[in-house]
Every structure is written in structure tokens, then in C-alpha cells.
């Protein structure tokens, strides 16, 4: 195992105002291995990798690439050292095609022959099992597809050290499995791969080694033989009880219908029918889980209900009132909370501070006095939310883009839940959260449910769906392929409905 290391990071230290994000961290990477970084939200994982990719300068410590000491003055130096990173929030150009994004910045001459490039990208994609249409514009792709573009971009540049920041946060279990088997293949060609993750089982399934971070410190680096979920959890959070999930909160029987969709249709960005004839309802105090492989209409479903997308046929009722094609602000005003798929840039405004983000939904009602904003109220609400939802931030007047991925998400969830909505549309609410945070989000969702909120939970995590939902609808190519009651749902049935065109009458209840 001790041949030349691909990468060695020694005593890396990074300080941000008010926080020590990395505290003398040591980290190594062998050729051919998958080395995972595990840690709670805000433990410093992204920071460490951002140092490796030259985005941040460390305050202390050294980096050796293949034994040679290297100083990164900029991301470009890091790319030159054949390091490539897929960030937690993607950095692609929306109006360019997938192929253009992949080759962007690599060609030394102007001879960018479109066909050649598309061919090359297509082959590269095929070879690595990362299917994506080279011609599609980025804004037309789902988050999962965008991720494939990001990875292809790195391969195209010949990256030898691949860093993926929470790659499976945006994938379904099936897609994750594919990704890891592809990563294993890629590693075989003497690449080293670093994967940041929250999911303990992924470490066990796919990692060769794992380094666990807690509050900026490296707790341990473990070899495969020492892997165990309990041990990881203890290292991550310093306590063991995180798996005890308060499963069956006693329920009121679900009440009246809050949300009702009848034969709803909607188009996607390309003008193609992406919701075909969707019908279901959600009752008061009920969680309706929507399972399905990403890109089968999840985003469109959430947007159509919240008024952000036109419903081309069919109708939507909220508490008996027809809200089909009402404006988003009218629907907002009817107590509908929405946690969108795209958090930074839609759910939150990255450049503004936390108070301005807290006001985003309620600025017209809760946080206003006539035509004026009521900062005082927003300020106290912000304090409440930070406390209640345990959001850590260094500088309250700084832009929220400086929050860690997990804290960003908690902030958004907190805002949408704090108004006790009648309906909450939550799209991938636990994406990117660590175990502890997931548990707290789940508890919050269940609490919301006991408060009588109807919840539409769109998720790619089948365990989450099974755990929380009262009923489960499975989306497949824009239709609800079947609706299962909690008691007769299991992973297999759902998985079947997720991937197969038609279901038997037995499954369809």
C-alpha cells in the first residue's frame, strides 16, 4: 500500500471569521483507491477539498502531489496538477450545451468543431456509463444529469484525482449504485477518487478507506477491515443514539382533503409533456410520498402545484378551492410552503444576508407594515429560526452563500416550515444533510403532520419515503404509476413501479 502517494495533505489548517473550519488535518490518497470523507454538516469537508482544488488558500499545512510539494495559487494550478472537483453546487453554464460545458476551457485553438466535440463527448460518456445527451442545453437537464456533465468534464481534462462533493445527494439509490460502480472502474486506471458523503452505508459499500471529520478535526482514517456504521457514527457525532428513530408517532386519522390533483398535465422546458394525467390527493395531517427516479417529473410536479409552472390541462384544488394556474404569490398566500429542488438561487438568494432571506416568502404579509418592511419582526423571527433549527453561522450580516451546504438547507426548510403551512411541498428535503440533521428534519416533518399540515414529500431516498409516508405514489415518465398504502408498501414494490411501465392491479391500490 505504501508506494508513491497520489496525494498527501499535511496539517492543513483553514480559519474563517469566527470559525476554525480545518484544524491540522492530514489526508492521503493512493492511486486506485476511493477514499471517502465523512462528517456532519459544517465539519469542514468542503473546505478541505476546496483547498485541494485551489479555491481557498490554507492558513497552514502542505500539499504533496506524487511526492512533490505543490502550492496552489489558484484553481488553475490545481487543474494543472490533474485534480478535478465536482462541487456541491454545480458550476456550469446554463445556456451552453452539455458538450460545450464539458470542453469549455480546454481547447487551445478556436477550431471547435461541433460535431467532433459532440462525438467525443458521446464516446466518453458511453465509455464511463455516464449517459447524457451532448446536445441538450444545461438548463434543460435535471440535477442528476448535470452531475454527469460535471464528472465528464473532469474526465475530459484527464483528471487523476477526482473529488466529488456529496455526489449521491442528488441521485436515486439505483443511480448511486451505478455511480459507485463507475467510480470503481475509473479508480482502476490509477486514478484516485475522493468522495464526500453523509451516508454511512455508502462508505461501507464503496470506500477503500474513510477519513472522518468532526468540527474541523480529523477523528480517524479507517481501513476497510475497521468499517462499521456504529463506529463511524460515534466518530462523526460523538454519540451513539442517532439511529434510534422515533418511528410511530401516534396519528390522528387523516382529515379532509387539502390538496387534490385531477388529470394534471404540464410541459417541461423543451415543450414536451412531462406530467401526463396526474391525479392524487393529500389529506390533512398526511404525508404523501412521491418516489421515482430523478427526471421523471418530480420538479415539474412541485412547480405546477406551487404555481411556478403552467398546468396545461386538468385542475388542482386546495382546501376545495380551485387554484389551477393561480400565480405563485396567490398560492403562497394560501399557506403553501415550498422547498424547491434548487436551493441556492431559487429557494434562497445567495448574495443576500440571512434576514433578507428569511423575509423572502413573508415580505408581503408577515414582515411588512403597510408598504414598508418590518425588519424588527424579521430580526426576531431570524433569531427564533436560528435557535430552533440549530443553524450555525459565522457572520450574521454575511451573505448566506457562505453557509455550509447543510446549514443552507436547514435555513430553507426552517423558513418554509415555520409558518405552519396548510400544505408543504418538500422536494428532496434531506439532500445533503448528515444523519443527525436528517433525523431532525424527519422529526420536524412528522411534527408538521401532527399539526395538520398536508405534506407532499418528493424524495429519491426510498427509505425516507417508506419511513415517513402514509401513502406513496410512484412517478414514472410523468405519470403516477401506482399508489401504495403504507402497510403494503415495500422497497421492492416501489422499485418495480419506478422502473416498469405498467403495474398489476394487485399493486395498484
Amino acid at each position: 500500500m505504501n508506494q508513491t502517494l497520489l496525494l498527501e495533505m499535511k496539517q492543513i489548517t483553514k480559519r474563517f471569521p469566527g470559525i476554525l473550519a480545518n484544524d491540522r488535518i492530514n489526508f492521503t490518497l493512493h492511486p486506485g483507491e476511493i477514499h471517502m470523507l465523512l462528517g456532519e454538516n459544517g465539519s469542514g469537508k468542503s473546505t478541505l477539498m476546496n483547498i485541494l482544488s485551489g479555491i481557498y488558500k490554507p492558513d497552514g499545512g502542505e500539499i504533496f502531489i506524487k511526492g512533490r510539494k505543490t502550492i496552489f495559487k489558484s484553481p488553475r494550478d490545481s487543474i494543472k496538477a490533474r485534480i478535478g472537483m465536482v462541487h456541491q453546487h454545480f458550476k456550469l453554464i446554463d445556456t451552453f450545451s452539455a458538450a460545450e460545458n464539458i470542453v469549455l476551457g480546454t481547447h487551445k485553438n478556436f477550431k471547435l468543431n461541433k460535431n467532433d466535440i459532440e462525438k467525443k463527448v458521446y464516446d466518453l460518456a458511453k465509455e464511463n456509463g455516464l449517459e447524457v445527451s451532448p446536445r441538450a442545453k444545461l438548463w434543460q437537464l435535471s440535477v442528476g444529469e448535470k452531475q454527469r456533465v460535471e464528472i465528464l468534464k473532469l474526465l475530459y481534462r484527464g483528471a487523476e484525482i477526482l473529488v466529488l462533493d456529496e455526489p449521491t445527494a442528488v441521485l436515486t439509490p439505483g443511480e448511486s449504485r451505478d455511480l459507485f460502480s463507475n467510480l470503481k472502474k475509473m479508480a482502476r486506471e490509477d486514478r484516485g477518487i475522493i468522495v464526500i458523503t453523509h451516508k454511512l452505508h455508502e462508505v461501507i459499500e464503496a470506500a477503500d478507506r474513510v477519513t472522518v471529520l468532526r468540527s474541523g478535526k480529523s477523528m480517524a482514517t479507517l481501513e476497510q477491515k475497521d468499517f462499521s456504521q456504529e463506529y463511524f457514527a460515534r466518530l462523526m457525532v460523538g454519540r451513539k443514539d442517532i439511529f434510534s428513530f422515533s418511528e410511530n408517532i401516534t396519528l390522528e386519522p387523516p382529515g379532509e382533503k387539502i390538496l387534490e390533483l385531477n388529470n394534471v398535465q404540464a410541459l417541461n422546458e423543451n415543450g414536451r409533456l412531462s406530467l401526463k394525467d396526474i391525479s392524487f390527493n393529500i389529506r390533512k395531517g398526511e404525508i404523501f410520498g412521491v418516489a421515482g427516479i430523478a427526471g421523471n417529473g418530480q420538479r415539474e410536479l412541485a412547480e405546477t402545484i406551487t404555481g411556478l409552472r403552467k398546468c396545461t390541462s386538468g385542475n388542482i384544488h386546495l382546501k376545495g378551492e380551485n387554484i389551477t394556474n393561480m400565480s405563485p404569490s396567490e398560492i403562497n398566500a394560501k399557506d403553501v410552503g415550498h422547498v424547491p429542488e434548487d436551493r441556492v438561487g431559487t429557494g434562497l438568494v445567495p448574495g443576500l444576508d440571512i434576514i433578507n432571506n428569511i423575509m423572502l416568502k413573508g415580505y408581503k404579509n408577515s414582515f411588512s407594515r403597510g408598504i414598508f418592511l418590518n425588519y424588527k419582526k424579521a430580526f426576531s423571527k431570524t433569531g427564533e429560526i436560528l435557535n430552533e433549527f440549530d443553524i450555525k453561522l459565522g457572520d450574521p450580516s454575511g451573505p448566506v452563500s457562505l453557509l455550509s451546504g447543510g446549514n443552507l438547507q436547514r435555513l430553507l426548510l426552517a423558513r418554509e416550515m415555520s409558518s405552519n403551512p396548510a400544505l408543504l411541498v418538500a422536494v428532496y428535503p434531506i439532500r445533503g444533510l448528515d444523519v443527525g440533521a436528517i433525523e431532525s428534519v424527519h422529526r420536524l416533518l412528522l411534527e408538521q403532520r401532527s399539526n395538520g399540515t398536508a405534506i407532499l414529500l418528493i424524495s429519491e431516498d426510498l427509505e425516507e419515503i417508506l419511513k415517513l409516508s402514509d401513502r406513496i405514489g410512484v412517478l414514472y415518465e410523468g405519470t403516477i404509476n401506482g399508489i401504495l398504502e403504507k402497510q403494503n408498501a415495500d422497497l421492492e414494490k416501489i422499485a418495480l413501479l419506478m422502473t416498469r411501465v405498467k403495474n398489476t392491479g394487485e399493486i395498484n391500490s
Partner: protein
Amino acid sequence: MTNYSNKIPITIEKKLTPSPLTSILVPLFSIILSLLFGSIFFIITGNDPVEIYSVMFSGVFGSAYGIIETIVKSIPLLLAGLGLSIAFRMQLFNIGGEGQIYMGAAAATWIALNLAGQPAWLLLPLMMLAGGVAGGIWALIPAIPRAYLGVNEIITTLMLNYVAIYWIDYLVHGPWKDPDGYNFPITSTFSNTAHLPVIGDTRIHAGIIIGIILAVILHFFIQQTKFGYEIRIIGQSQNAARYAGMNIVRKIIIVMVLSGAVCGLTGMVEVSGIVHRLQSGFSPGYGYTAIIVAWLGRLNPLAIIITAVLFGGLQVGGYAVQMQNIPVSMVMMLQGSLLFFVLGGEILTRYRITLKNRSSQGDGIS
């Protein structure tokens, strides 16, 4: 596109915390740099930079007249800068300030000429209203295709400047020409009641008060009102604005009209406070200079007061230089380089720029 990023030997990296010291020192340093940069051109064209700068300096600060004129010139820059900043905040690039100034001035003139002799309390508010409405309408024309069809407003607002300027040319050469004006392209002089009051016996007029009040109101408006909040959100992220239920189409129209109305008011203030009639070319490009004024003030209404005075001074200094037979285009060049360096300096406060010290393979420039 791909190529530039590979050849330019610098890299730009986001800085995390711009220190307060740099945010004062950097603009100052940038101004000095732009003066040095200007001197290169002066030297190339055979002029003595020291002489030019001292002429400019004494032109502005050397006499009461210079200081007063600086303030006089800064009034339209302040007003128009404020007007444009509203639109810029929302990423609407209203380049049409100049045309809106002209239209506002024409509408105010129409009131002044037709209601000549009416008392000031009636005439001045009416003129302001007319100026604002005309400027607003002039901005509404490009706003509608922008809001509904996404037609680029930079082009349309710019084109409308020419229409407005030639339209005023037509008016003062034709129907509105002063019969007793010895055939000059000017209207007759406004009656006294159509003049904005002045301070003492200087040329500084009530426009300065309007400008300062407007700046304060605007600052308050952007920070404290729901409408201002919407402008800030839309300017930052249209997706988030849509998600929050904001009506972006309507806001584009309202904000463009507001922006145009303030520019129209600028035209009224200029004809009523200084020119006292309409004449062709009465604005030496205030609507364009105001673009620089607004950006240099980082779209902050209170900062725009300062940048307006700075550019008022540059204008006056420019006149002083002109007296020495140095072409005024030199001063225009200075304005441009000021914008370049100060905005460049701002990038410095927010990003860290590093020079790559690898030996380049000596390829040609650009």
C-alpha cells in the same frame, strides 16, 4: 472565449472578507492610478500632465465660481444618476437617460410656454409633473418589449436617445422656435415664474435640494419598502423572485418608468434651473455620464451624491482645460479611465488577483 482564459496570465480568486481598510484605500488608489494612466495619454499627445491637472484643479477649486459651477453641473448628474440606478439595480440597463432628459425637458417647456405668466406655485409643479411623465413614457416604450418579449433594452433605449434628440431639434428649429430669436434654434425664454429658485445670486438652484431629497428617499425606498425589496431580489436572482411570487413583468415596467421619470425630471430641472428655455444640445451628454456616476456610486443613492460632485468637478475642470486649447476629449478620456480603474479596483477588494509567474511562450497580445 475558451482561449482568453488560457492566455491571460492572471487568475482571479474570490476573497472571503474584504477588509474595511481596503474598501477605502482601494478606490483612492484607483483614482490616483487613473490620473497616472491619463498622464500617459497627455504625454503621448504632447501635453504636460502636471499642467493639465493643475489647470483642472485650480479651475475647480481655485475660485468660488469653480466650486459653484461644479455644484451646478453635478445637479443633473445626480438626478439622472439616481434615476438610472433604480433600473440598474434590477439589471435593467437603461442607457436611455439622455433621451429621457430631452423628452422631460420638452414637456416641461411646453407647459412653461403655454402657461407663461402663471404663478410659480402652479407652474413649477406642473412642469415637474410633465417632465416626469414624458421621461416615464419614453422609458415605457422600450420597457414593454423588454418585459413581455425579452427584447434587449440596451439597444432600444439607446436608439430612442437619437429619436428624442432629433425630435427636440425639430421643435426648436421649427414649431417652437422663438420668433424674436434671430433664427437661433431656441425657444423663447421662460417667464420668471417658470424658473426654479436659486440660492443667493449664484447659479445653484433648487435642483440640488430636489436631488438630495430624492437620494435620501430612494435610499430609504430601496432598503425599507416592500417594493425596494422586490427590486433587490429580482436584481439578484429572477428564479428566487419568481419563487417568492413576485410579478417580474410588472416590476420591469414600473421600474423602467420610474427610472425614466426621474431622468425626465432631470430635463425639467435643467431647463427650468439653468437654461430657462429649450435649445438643441442643452445637455452635453448628462444621461451618458450619469451611467458612470451611478455605477461608480455602486448604485447606492447616497454614494451617488459624491460621485455626481466628482464628475461635476471633472466637467468644470474640463472647461478650464479647454480654455488652454487642450481638447476636451482628453477629459472625456479621463472620465472613462476613472470608471475603468475604480470598477477594476472594486474587483480587487472582492477578489484576489494573482499574476502567474510562469514563463510565457511569447505569443502575441490580444
